[in-house]
C-alpha cells in the first residue's frame, strides 16, 4: 500500500466508523422509543404501547392507551450523534489535548526547544506542514499525534519523553508520530477518541437509566428484543474499545516503518521503544480512551506484554518486542 491508498483507506475507515456509531446511537434511541416512549411500529407493537404481547390480551374494562407515531428518542439520538461528529471534527483535537492537560511547547525553554527543533526536522523530512507542538506534564515517556488533516495536526509528547530519550531517539518517536499524520491515521484515531469517547459516555448513561425503568403492568415484555437492546447498550463501550484497539494495532507497525523511512534510522526507534518499555509506569495523565493514540500503551498494560491471542485481542498496541524486532530487521536490510 502506498501513502495515497493508506490515506484513502483511513478516510473510508473514518466514514465507516462514524456510520457505525450513528447506527449504534440510532439503535439505542430506537430501543428507548420502543420500551419507554410508547412508539407504535406496525407489526411490532399492538397499538397500546405494548410490544410482542404473547401472554394476556387487554383486561376487560381497560382502555388501550394510544402510543405515539414519532420516534422522538431515535431522532434525538441521531441528531446528537451528528452534533457529536461535528464537534469531534472541529473540536476533537483540542478536547483531547486539554484532557491530558497539554500545554503548547515553549520555544524559550531549552527542553521544549529540542522537541520543537526535532519536530521541525521531521516536518521537513516528511514534506508535511509543521504540526503544532504540545507538551504533556507527565514524567512517564509517551507521545501521540492528533488532528483532522496534515494541514492542522498536533503532536504531543510528555515531559518524560524529552528527558528520557536522547536526541536521536526523540527524533525517531516524533517521526513515528509524523507517520501517523502523513498516513492520515490521526483523522481516524481522533474520531475514535472523540466520538467513540462520547458514545461510551452516552451508553453508560443509557445503561444507568435503564435501571430506573418504570415497569407498567399493562405493557408487554417484548423479552428477546429488550434483552438484545440491553446487551447492545451494555456492550457498546466494549465494542467501541475493541474496534479502537483493532484499528490502532495494525497501524503501529506501519507508522514504525514510515517513521524509520523519515529518519533513515530504524535502530533509533528500536532503542527508543526499549526505553519506553522499561519505563513501565503508567502514563497517568492519559486516560484509557486515548490509549490507541499513544506510541506505547499508556496503561503499562498487562496484555501488551503477552504474545498470545488475548494479548493480540485486548491491547491497543502490538507487543513492543515484536515492533523492535521488525525495526532491527529493517536496519539489517538497510546495511546489507
Amino acid at each position, binding site marked *: 500500500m502506498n501513502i495515497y491508498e493508506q490515506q484513502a483507506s483511513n478516510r473510508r475507515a473514518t466514514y465507516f466508523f462514524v456510520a457505525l456509531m450513528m447506527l449504534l446511537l440510532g439503535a439505542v434511541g430506537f430501543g428507548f422509543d420502543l420500551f419507554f416512549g410508547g412508539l407504535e411500529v406496525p407489526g411490532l407493537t399492538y397499538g397500546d404501547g405494548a410490544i410482542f404481547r404473547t401472554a394476556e390480551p387487554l383486561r376487560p374494562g381497560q382502555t388501550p392507551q394510544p402510543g405515539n407515531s414519532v420516534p422522538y428518542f431515535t431522532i434525538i439520538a441521531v441528531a446528537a450523534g451528528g452534533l457529536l461528529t461535528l464537534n469531534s471534527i472541529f473540536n476533537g483535537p483540542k478536547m483531547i489535548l486539554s484532557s491530558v492537560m497539554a500545554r503548547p511547547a515553549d520555544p524559550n525553554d531549552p527542553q521544549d*526547544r529540542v522537541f520543537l*527543533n526535532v519536530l*521541525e526536522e*521531521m516536518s*521537513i523530512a516528511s514534506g508535511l506542514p509543521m504540526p503544532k507542538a504540545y507538551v504533556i506534564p507527565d514524567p512517564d515517556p509517551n507521545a501521540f499525534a492528533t488532528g483532522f488533516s496534515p494541514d492542522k495536526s498536533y503532536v504531543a509528547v510528555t515531559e518524560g519523553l524529552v528527558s528520557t530519550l536522547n*536526541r536521536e531517539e526523540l*527524533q525517531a518517536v516524533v517521526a513515528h508520530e509524523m507517520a501517523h499524520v502523513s498516513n492520515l491515521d490521526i483523522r481516524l484515531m481522533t474520531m475514535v477518541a472523540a466520538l467513540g469517547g462520547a458514545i461510551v459516555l452516552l451508553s453508560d448513561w443509557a445503561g444507568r437509566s435503564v435501571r430506573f425503568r418504570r415497569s407498567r403492568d399493562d405493557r408487554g415484555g417484548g423479552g428477546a428484543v429488550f434483552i438484545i437492546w440491553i446487551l447492545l447498550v451494555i456492550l457498546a463501550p466494549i465494542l467501541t474499545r475493541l474496534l479502537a484497539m483493532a484499528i490502532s494495532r495494525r497501524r503501529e507497525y506501519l507508522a514504525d516503518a514510515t517513521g524509520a523511512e523519515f529518519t533513515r534510522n530504524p535502530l533509533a526507534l528500536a532503542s527508543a521503544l526499549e526505553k519506553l518499555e522499561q519505563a513501565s509506569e503508567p502514563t497517568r495523565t492519559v486516560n484509557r480512551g486515548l490509549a490507541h493514540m499513544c506510541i506505547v500503551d499508556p496503561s503499562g498494560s498487562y496484555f501488551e506484554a503477552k504474545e498470545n491471542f488475548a494479548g493480540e485481542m485486548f491491547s491497543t498496541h502490538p507487543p513492543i518486542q515484536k515492533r523492535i524486532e521488525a525495526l532491527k530487521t529493517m536496519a539489517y536490510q538497510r546495511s546489507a
Partner: protein
Amino acid sequence: MTIAIIVGVLIVGALALIFTFNSLVGLRNQVLNAFRQIDVQLKRRYDLIPNLVNSVKGEMKFEQETLERVVKARAAAVSANQSGNIADMGKKEGELSMALGRLMMLTENYPNLKANDSVKSLMEELTNTENKVAFSRQFYNDLATKFNTKQQVFPTNMVAGMMGFKPSDLFEIPAEQAAQREAPKVEL
C-alpha cells in the same frame, strides 16, 4: 463508424498525453520547491556559524586551526551556493559539515563551554540546522528520484523526451568524504 473510432482513439491519446505532461510538470515543480527548501536551511546555517565561532573563540584559543577551517569552509560553501552547481555545492557543504562536526566534537573537551547555556543552545541550533539540511536534501533526493524514474519508465519516457524534461541532479556524498565519515579521526 471508422471515423468515430479514429476520433475516439485520438481523444484518448490526447488525454493521456495531457495527463502525463501535467503530472510531470507537477513533479518538476515539487522538485524545484524541495530544492529551494534546502537553500533556506543552508542560509540559516551560514548565519549561525559566525555566532558559534564568536562564542567559543575565547575559550578555544588552542584550536585556532579548527576555527579557521570552519570559517573558510563556510566562505567556500557560500560561494558554491551562489554558483548553483549541485555537485560543487554538495562537496563544499560536505566539507563544511565535517569542519563543524570536528569543532563540535572538540567543544566536548571544554567543560566551561559545555556548561555554558548560550553555547549549549547554539550547539542545539546548529545540530538542528545540520539535520534540517540533511533532511531537506533527503526529501529533495527522494522527489528527484521519483521524477527521474517517471521520466525513464515506459510510456512516460516518450512524452518526457518529446517535451524536453531533464533528469534532476541528486545530492551525493563524495566518495572520499564518505570514507572519512565512516571513521571519524579522534585526536586526543
